[in-house]
Structure formats: C-alpha cells, structure tokens
C-alpha cells in the first residue's frame, strides 16, 4: 500500500496543481477583500492579511447601491429559474410521453433555439423592448432569460424523464389518477434530482448574465449585480481593489454555496443529462 502511494506521488502533485490553479484566484478574492488598502497595494504583495478588516464591505454598501443590485438580481434569477423549470418540466414530459403530430418538430425547434446566438436575439429584442417601453423592466428580463435558458432546461429534463419507467404511472392511473395527477404525484417526485440540477444551472446562468442586462437596463436603480460590479470597476478608475473584491465575494458567495449544497446532484444530473 505504501509503495503504491509512493508511486502515485506524481499524480498527487498534479492533483494539487490542478486544485491550486482552479481555486487560488478565488482564495485571492477572499484574502484581498479582508485586507486594508495599504496592504493591497504594497509591493511585494503579501499573502495572508496582516490585519483583518471588514471596512471594504462597509465602504461597498456605502458608496454604491449594492443592496439594490443584489435585490434586483435575486428577483430576476429566482423568477427566471422558477418559470424556466416550470415550463421546462411540462414541455419535457410532453415531449417524452405523448405521441402528438408535430412533436418531433418541437423537439428540433428547441435544438434550433439552442443554436441561435444571444447576440443575434439581442438586436431584434432590443428593438421590441424600445418600441413597447420595456426598457428598465425587470419582468422583461425575466421573460428573456427564461426564453434563452429554456432549451437547455428542456434537454436536460427530457433525458431525465426518458429514464423513468412508465409502469408506475400506469399503476397510478389504474388506481384512479388522471394522467396529470399521475404526472404530479408519480413522475415529478422521481425527477427531483434532475429538477434540482437544472434549477441550479439556470439560477447560476441568470445570476451571471451580463449582455442582455447591460443592454436592457439603463437605470442604475434597476442594475443586476454583474452590471453593478462592472459599473463599480469603471467608476473606481484608480482601482480600490479591496472594495471591488468585497463586491466580487458578495456576488460569488450565493452561487458557490448553492453549488456546494447540491453538488451530489450535479455530476449525475447535468453531466449525464447533457449526453443522453
């Protein structure tokens, strides 16, 4: 056993290197956010903070409307996730279970939608938004996100429903359920891991999005966190790195926590779902 471990030493070295490359930049955000300004711009740079401070976070919420950005992002991301998963679950089930003329066509349409670039959608949508006065409307952003994230959700969920047997549903229907009742009581509980994995990916995509948000929203009160941070980067032209890192930490923490909580579903859920 010891010999085996010894021979595997190079592998452990590689593993350490890979983890370091992946996570040191993130660790650096945390360390910098907790350092006073003087220490951040010191050269040569220090690694561990000599003095821990939360001043950067205090400054962040004082000089910017970051709490408003957080609220907007939360609203938009939760709304888009709920809508995407609801529509995705219904449509994916219908695609897998029913034999309706034209169904194949809908499946191919969703694949096509997946290939349509957001940048192509942007110009016509921006025109519609301008014409109907929907600029600065967070609801419009929710619908837009739902539409662009739906194809991904549809395909992931489709592969999930595909793996479920139809016998349990039939049994439920023999016992007096309607088809829809069987769907809600029998199919959905089995699909929970797939629904969770899809929700997390959808939430993360909406939380991170920049292109649509920055084109649609012009009023700083309506900004999402991505826009807010980008604005902050432009405003603090003499970079106040500590404040920026504090903002980055505030943005990244919710998605990382969410990701850690549901990690066990993700590799099995989206990893395999992407392939089936």
């Amino acid at each position, binding site marked *: 056993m010891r010999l085996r471990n010894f021979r595997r030493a190079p592998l452990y070295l*590689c593993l350490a290197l*890979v*983890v370091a490359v*992946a*996570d040191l930049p*993130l660790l*650096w955000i945390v360390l910098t956010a907790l350092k006073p300004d003087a220490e951040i711009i010191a*050269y*040569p*740079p220090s690694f561990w903070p000599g003095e821990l401070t939360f001043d950067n976070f205090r400054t962040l919420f004082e000089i910017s409307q970051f709490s408003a950005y957080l609220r907007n992002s939360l609203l938009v991301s939760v709304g888009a996730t709920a809508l995407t998963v609801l*529509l*995705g679950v*219904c*449509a994916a089930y*219908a695609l*897998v*279970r*029913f034999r309706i003329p034209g*169904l*194949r066509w809908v499946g*191919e*349409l969703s*694949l*096509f*939608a997946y*290939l349509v*670039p*957001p*940048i*192509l959608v*942007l*110009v*016509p949508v921006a*025109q519609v938004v301008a014409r109907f006065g929907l600029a600065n409307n967070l609801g419009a952003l929710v*619908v837009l996100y*739902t539409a662009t994230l*739906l194809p991904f959700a*549809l395909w992931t969920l489709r*592969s999930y429903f595909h793996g479920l047997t139809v016998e349990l549903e*039939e049994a439920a*229907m*023999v016992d007096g359920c309607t*088809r829809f*009742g069987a769907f809600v009581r029998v199919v959905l509980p089995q699909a929970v891991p797939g629904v969770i994995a899809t929700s997390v990916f959808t939430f993360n995509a909406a939380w*991170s*999005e*920049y292109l649509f948000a920055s084109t649609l929203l012009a009023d700083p009160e309506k900004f999402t966190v*991505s826009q807010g941070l980008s604005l902050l980067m432009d405003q603090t032209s003499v*970079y106040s790195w500590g404040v920026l890192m504090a903002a*980055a930490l505030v*943005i*990244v923490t919710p*998605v990382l926590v969410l*990701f850690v909580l549901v990690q066990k579903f993700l*590799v*099995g859920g989206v*990893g*395999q*779902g992407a*392939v089936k």
Partner: protein
Amino acid sequence: MTSSEVTSREVTATTQVRPPARKSVPAKKVRRGFSDRALGTLMLLPALLLLLVFAVYPFLASVFDSFFRIDFLTREHTFLGPDNYRRLWEDPAVRGAFGRSVLWVAANVVIQAVLGVAVALLLNAGLRGQSLARGLVLFPYVVPAVVAALVFRFLFNDTSGVAGYALRELGLSESLANPFADPATVLGALVAVNCWKYVPFVVIVVLARLQTLPGELKEAASLDGAGRFGIFRHVTLPWIAPALIVAMLMRTIWTAYDFDLPYLLAAGGPMDSSTTVPLAIRKLAFADQDLGLASALAVCVAILLVAGARLYLRAYRSSESALS
C-alpha cells in the same frame, strides 16, 4: 442537446416500445381528465410560444433586416439586397474579427477538450481526497464572468498584480506588464482565462461518463496485454468519445457566442486586437447604429455554427456506433 436525428430516433423508439399508457389501462377505470392530446398540447404550448417569440422571430427578423438599411431612430427600412453581405466581405474590421473568432474558438475548444479529459482522468484515478478535489476543481465554472474578469485583471494588474509578481520571481517575465493591455498577448490571455472558467464543464461531462465505464472492459484489455496507454487509447477514449464530442459541440457554440468574458476583460481592445465577432456585432448595432450590417453578420455566424454542429453530430454518431 444531442442531435435532432438522435432525438427523433429516441422519441420514436419510446413510442414504439411503450405505446401511450391509455391503451394498456382498462378503459372503465380511467378517471376522466384531459385527453392525452389536449394535455400534451397544453403542457407544451407555453414553452413553444416562448421559443417562437424569442428564437424564431429574432432569427427571421435578423434575416429580413440583413437585406435593408435601417434608420436607427425612425426604423425606416430601405431595401438594399445583398449589399450588407458584400460590405461584410469587404470590411477589413469584420474580416479581422472573423479571423480572431476562428482562432478564439479553435484554441479554446482544443485546450478545454485535452485538459478536460486529463483532469477528469486524474479525478477518477482513486486518489485520496478525490471527492473533495472534484468539488474544488468545478468552482471556476460557477463564478460569474464579471467576477472572473475582475479577479484576473487584479492578478495581472501592472502595479501590484500578484501573478505578474510571481512570474517575475520565477524568472518567466521581466516586468509586471498587463497581458490584457498588450495587443500581442491579449487574445492568448483571454483564452487562458476562458479555459480556466470552462475546463470544469468538460470535466463534469467526461467524469459522469467515466463513472459508467464497465470494469470488465479494462480487465479484458489488460489481460490481452494492453499497457496503460493502450487501455486509454482502445478502451477509455472510445468510451468517453460520445460525451466528449457533445461537450465539445456545446463549448464550440458557447465560445463562438461568448460576449461577457472577452468584453469585461478587454472590451475588444487594445485597438480592436481582441474584438471577436459577438463584440463586433454589438459595436455595429449600437455604436455604429448599423442594424442591417449587424444583422447580416449575426446571420452569417448562425449559419456557420449550424453547419459546424452537423459535423459534430456526424462524429457523434460514428463514435456511438463504434461502441456497439
């Protein structure tokens, strides 16, 4: 997410193997609800409408607009015919953006595929701390583009950047030069950051596939005298190939369309040296206010990507049939 052909094959397969449940349930016991057809249509309709409005309409509108000169304020359309496409072909800025996009996609996809497979194998080698490492390695994928852009700007900033400092201490670089501010290095630096963020995606997909690799296959190969590399070449690689190809297809599409990370890191600069096609499209549409030309460029990219997707799908099918 795979191919339209694969899907339709799967859909027909399901319907053949499992006829609609109604027929197999004794008729009198079925409670009356919607008919299958009504319920199916009802469940599909909202998603269908959304796709029509936000994918089909914009696509058709872009194709239409690409044949017109459009006044940015009055939206007045003047028919041009294929003039916009001719202008695209002749415009050196657009040609430059196109070349950079090809380079950008090829470099990203190749590096991400190679590193993705390598890291997935490493994370599947049964090392101690493997499950913790799996979680840690996937973190960059979750980090929003704006945060990734910020942290790498900070790491490589030219006054106190710790990455530049480390490179200099290691003797790899002479100054704290910011690689995102130098036309010679900006594209390479963008590719590096993009790979940092998206290699984990390939790792997720390949890892999921590796876990389903039957142990007997490997044993049989090593009984036949295959070495480690032989096992990888003849057993593992063919097994993960379908998953890897799908992952590469998705990475190709997303990388070709990627706006956020390149824009937030370098905004196309310095002097357009990192302007890829999506950045050029937005610039044409909103800065130059030339909606017709922007639409034409977007349509060209969409067509190229659909053609590219077909190549991947062909490779996917042959990798699937090679397995069986």
